[in-house]
């Protein structure tokens, strides 16, 4: 059936007119969903693609699901992709993406929508009430100013859903055939930070947020406070039995037994429910909590509901400061979690703080920032580490008071305004790319991450190789346990999935200094970008679980990725009925990536803008990172070509050779190496002449080689 996996319609919310229109999804299917779908919609609905700040009313923000959403595809049924022009990046806020998990995209599908296109700007704050096909714009002046949790609760109340569980069946409208549900609507909203157009996050439920790109402020600038969606419909799939059976296989073959976990296993996706929170839990009375259809929840809910679902980086960024004031790990944890809670309520993306807070503290101690500094700040910097400071800090950011006024536009915007370029030379301001914080995988050492970011538009944040080739051996090394899979085999298994560009080419995975600028590495980065663009960001497979290159639960250690029984292409086939190979998906990713680059080009991208911060070229990682860390393991062949996990030593990138590498990369992509722009021939081979035409019209078509 043509609509297998698809709801069939896209919802266009015109905020200027306060009108909702339904668009047929038929013409967008080639893009797969998620990022591809969102980008195609942006291409069609954004009238001015030269915008460089997402807060312009002409910006278009798309929330897209995928054919997998709402179905039990393992860790693929619950992610929502957010696309549009972002905020707070440097030098330009690119057309960018973010995604979040939870229930929003599955609700979207059950309500009958594949995506939501948001255009224009409302005259006054509104929120949108979607129940299946019914869409209503509701005055949000009473919600404006509410924090993200209060907003969600208020919307539930409006729709007549009471707090708590054990609720009776509720009608979507006033007749039983209009649909019934026992579920709460999924409410995606912004907090005060977004309202004041400070680069912030979109929050759904307690712990799902789209942080990168600062789409919270995009919504704020559009006067959009929240979108509530309640669906009682169904998602048809091509082969239900096939889908169910493949899901069973995934659990039985690839994933740990929930009650007999192999906690030292190298299973990638398959560790099952393990909470990714870095603070000592306030209480052990807790459960795992998962996005829709996940095979192993990474979040948790506590007996004290306050810190529910806080996970990953947001549970860590404040701990280092908090420990100055507390002894007990639990107290430190609580201080951190309280800060995380404050962040979630105001709706800020805490990732930037990874680099911003240490840098700001540095400025404070240098006497540059503070009551008497050149940069005036009355914040109690000596209290940095206490929850009170965090609250005060967020308040000044949200209200654009104190240094908040400058930071609101972006961290590097502030840095340049304050004339602190030197901190980018020294690395004290650790923003390696696009004005974004260092993720913790330094581009000088973890090459695919750094290059991947440089060749796209945001912190790469794709843990595929990182999980398998760094974390797995790392885990064994730290506790001097034997490697579960020898380097030789591990590299074989990964390389086997690198088609169509580098299938079986192990040298692509050589992380030694000699290989930092090679064609092989360019192929690896291409593969990684294209894989992510389609299988993860367009199909909505979760980055924590996919790709799964190898897996110690299986014979021969074969992972689920690309496998015959539970590989990405299997899910695509059983859901949509389309017999597409794993590599066909990567080709689709290439097309989507080209569409992205076309938009960046229209925005004003040129290869000369694609550069790391100066310190990445000048300073060694030594002392800053790896020196204090005895093993940053990556695979590397020894002089006899035998592979081992080797600590890749201190090093920096050579600017000139990075430029050469870029040329190689552009060449392989079939782009103009002089500019980094797509060429007509390349676009036309992908049936994307319409893109070439638009580029040509503004004289930004890459020159053919």
């Amino acid at each position, binding site marked *: 059936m043509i609509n297998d996996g698809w709801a069939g319609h896209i919802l266009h919310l015109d905020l200027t007119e306060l009108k909702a229109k339904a668009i047929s999804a038929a013409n967008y299917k080639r893009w797969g969903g998620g990022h591809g779908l969102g980008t195609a919609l942006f291409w069609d609905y954004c009238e001015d693609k030269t915008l460089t700040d997402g807060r312009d009313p002409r910006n278009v923000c798309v929330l897209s699901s995928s054919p997998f959403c*709402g*179905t*039990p595809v393992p860790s693929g*049924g619950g992610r929502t992709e957010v696309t549009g022009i972002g905020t707070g990046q440097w030098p330009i806020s690119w057309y960018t993406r973010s995604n979040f998990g939870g*229930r929003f995209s599955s609700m979207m599908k*059950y309500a009958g929508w594949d995506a939501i296109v948001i255009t224009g700007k409302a005259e006054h704050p509104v929120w949108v009430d979607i129940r299946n096909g019914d869409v209503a714009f509701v005055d949000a002046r009473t919600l404006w100013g509410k924090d993200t949790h209060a907003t*969600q*609760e208020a919307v539930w109340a409006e729709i007549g859903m009471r*707090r*708590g*569980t*054990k*609720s*009776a069946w509720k009608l979507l409208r006033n007749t*039983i*055939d209009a*649909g*019934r549900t*026992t579920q*709460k609507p999924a409410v995606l909203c912004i907090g005060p930070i977004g309202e004041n157009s400070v680069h912030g996050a979109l929050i759904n*439920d*307690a712990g799902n947020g789209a942080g990168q790109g600062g789409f919270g402020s995009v919504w704020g600038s559009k006067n959009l406070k929240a979108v509530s969606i309640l669906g009682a*419909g*169904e*998602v*048809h799939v091509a082969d*239900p*039995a096939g889908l*169910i*059976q493949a*899901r*069973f296989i995934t*659990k039985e073959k690839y*994933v740990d037994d*929930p*009650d*007999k*976990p192999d906690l030292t296993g190298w299973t990638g996706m398959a560790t*099952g*429910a*393990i*909470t990714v929170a870095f603070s000592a*839990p306030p209480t*052990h*009375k*807790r*459960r*795992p909590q*998962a996005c*829709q*259809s*996940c*095979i*192993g*929840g990474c979040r948790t*809910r506590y*007996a*004290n*509901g306050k810190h*529910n679902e806080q996970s990953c980086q947001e549970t860590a960024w404040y701990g280092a400061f908090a420990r100055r004031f507390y002894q007990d790990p639990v107290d430190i944890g609580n201080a951190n979690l309280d800060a995380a809670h404050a962040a979630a309520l105001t709706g800020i993306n805490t990732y930037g703080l990874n680099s911003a807070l240490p840098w700001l503290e540095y400025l404070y101690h240098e006497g540059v920032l503070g009551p008497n500094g050149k940069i005036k700040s009355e914040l109690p910097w000596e209290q940095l580490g206490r929850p009170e400071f965090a609250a005060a800090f967020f308040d000044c950011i949200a209200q654009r008071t104190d240094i908040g006024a400058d930071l609101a536009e972006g961290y590097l915007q502030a840095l340049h305004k304050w004339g602190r370029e030197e901190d980018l030379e020294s690395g004290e301001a650790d923003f390696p790319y696009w004005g974004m914080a260092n993720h913790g995988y330094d581009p000088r050492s973890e090459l695919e991450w750094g290059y991947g970011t440089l060749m796209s538009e945001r912190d790469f944040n794709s843990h595929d190789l990182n999980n398998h080739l760094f974390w797995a051996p790392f885990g064994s090394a730290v506790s001097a346990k034997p490697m579960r899979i020898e380097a030789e085999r591990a590299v074989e298994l990964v390389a086997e999935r690198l088609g169509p560009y580098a299938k079986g080419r192990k040298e692509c995975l050589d992380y030694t200094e000699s290989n930092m600028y090679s064609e092989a590495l360019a192929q690896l980065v291409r593969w990684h970008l294209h894989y992510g663009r389609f299988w993860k960001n367009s199909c909505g497979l979760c980055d924590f679980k996919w790709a799964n290159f190898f897996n110690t639960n299986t014979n021969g250690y074969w992972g689920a990725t690309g496998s015959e029984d539970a590989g990405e292409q299997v899910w695509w086939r059983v859901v949509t009925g389309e017999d597409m190979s794993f590599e066909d998906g990567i080709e689709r990713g290439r097309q989507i990536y080209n569409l992205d680059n076309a938009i960046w080009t229209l925005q004003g991208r040129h290869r000369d803008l694609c550069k790391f911060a100066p310190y990445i070229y000048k300073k060694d990682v030594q002392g800053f990172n790896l020196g204090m860390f005895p093993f940053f393991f990556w695979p590397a062949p020894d002089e006899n070509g035998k592979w081992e996990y080797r600590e890749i030593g201190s090093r920096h990138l050579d600017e000139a050779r990075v430029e050469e590498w870029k040329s190689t990369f552009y060449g392989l992509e079939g782009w103009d190496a002089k500019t980094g722009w797509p060429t007509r021939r390349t676009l036309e081979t992908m049936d994307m002449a319409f893109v070439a035409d638009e580029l040509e019209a503004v004289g930004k078509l890459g020159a053919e080689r």
Partner: protein
Amino acid sequence: MSIDDLDEKERAMLEPENPGRRKFMLFTGMAGVAGFLAGSFLLPGKLEAMPDSKGFLVVDLNKCQGCGSCMMVCSLGHHGAASQSLSRIQIQQDPFANYPDDVFMAPCHQCEDAPCVQACPVAANRPAMELGNVRMIDQERCIGCEQCINACQFTPSRVQWDPKRHKAQKCDLCTDALYLGEYGGIGGTQACVKVCPVNAISFTIEMPDQSREDSYQVNLRGKGWYARGFSDKD
């Protein structure tokens, strides 16, 4: 009415009597009425003693991760389409509530003397005798009167409404799950049990205590579970 109501012309035009037939009609009518009135007292009452189900689903509210996989697979297995509203097991969440009250799992209890079965006027909802007495609704018989939905005493009601077909449905332990790809029902697979990533749903042949609603909520947490850092103790 009587002849007097007719004016004299009409009276003159009265059709000729046909006493034979008229009596016959009267007699038939009387007989029919009498027969059915009498029969109505002889109508069989409700079902005689209802045999107990030979299988039950029990759940662990402290283990569920709220991923909804069970709901999706349930509706997929029965309808060939994923849907929360058509799922026979309902998982509810309040992300802001305190564990363990943040999640509620609502499986069908396959009750003793199931009220939903008793409520069905056309015996569409009844124990499948040859299939372990699982209480299931025969979609061919259901007339969509919603009485079983009302009759379920639990909240949310464990009987769902299929708006497309105007019929009620309920958990059949996958007896009728045509899209499961394997045999369901008692002695076979229950999709929700098999798919649950944390094994928070389990099938048992022991009938839980019918006098308590929470007797279907059990502890399914093994040692390994605590090794993952989840516990009830501080």
